[in-house]
């Protein structure tokens, strides 16, 4: 069986591990915060989403480098 494709795909797969862990940690902290203090939820939600977006930016840079 022939395997065709690009090795940079594997590289991009590895590169997503970091942001994946980061996103997991951010939402774990968010869930912890809401569990301890449910009324803080509207305050925490945009912060969690912003942090998620910033961590995800690293994966997006990886995607750009894959296309280069």
């Amino acid at each position: 069986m022939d395997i065709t494709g690009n090795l940079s795909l594997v590289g991009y797969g590895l590169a997503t591990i970091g942001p994946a862990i980061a996103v997991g940690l951010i939402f774990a902290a968010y869930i912890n915060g809401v569990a301890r203090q449910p009324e803080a939820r509207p305050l925490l939600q945009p912060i969690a989403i912003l942090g998620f977006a910033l961590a995800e930016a690293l994966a997006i840079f990886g995607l750009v480098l894959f296309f280069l």
Partner: protein
Amino acid sequence: MILAPAAQLPMSSGEEFTAPGAEIFWAPLIGEGDWAITEQMVWGGISVILISIALVMLTRNVSIVPSKSQFLFEGFYNFARNSIARDMIGSKHFLRFVPLLFSLFTLILVNNWFGVLPPVMNPTFGRIGFPIAATLVVYVVYHWVGFKRYGFSGYFGHMIPEGLPGWIKPIIFPLELITYFITRPLTLALRLFGNMFAGHILIVLFVSAAAYFLTQGVVFKVLAVPTFLMAAVMWMFEALIQALQAYVFTLLAASYIAGALAEDH
């Protein structure tokens, strides 16, 4: 309208399976090459017409005691107005950015959901031109309000966070310049594009793989069932991601505007 992905589905047992790639997004309707009118452009236009009609219908007969549809629409509007614009920009300046943020949110949400709605099944923002256009609007707006508020040199000075020791400012300044002028628009556009692109490819991959399994032997025909189920799961996951990405895009646009306006960081 979904001729391009459908044409790729293997129909007979002799065919090799080819995984869907970036070419499934290339769907020209009229013309060819760089100036072709693509399916996504048509759906983008239709989405604007649909949104306009829906919003005019919903706001035509507004009353103090809201009807059911008015109540639902007010909830949707208040989400963009209060949870995104007011919470990010602050109650002093947010009101003049509500039209922009609400239009962005509605447009991106409807166009993203086109990616999972059966007659369309094609996320408009999966073509890089659309996220770039939406980002360009946000880019011009947040720099414009920043320059207008702080003046030309004042805005550049405003980029450096307050309270830093003097020796570190020359190091921070280029980093902040890169953040404001390159990183922010780049990630804003590519986040939306990447999510729509990857999500759509994933759905097409599962569906085309299941269709390919159906043309093969008995074992593969059985395998097609979980593959179709997985496609359905991915479909629902995509609907969630698409709503989330519309929210994230608008939230980040609001936070960039807030960053350009803020008194201090």
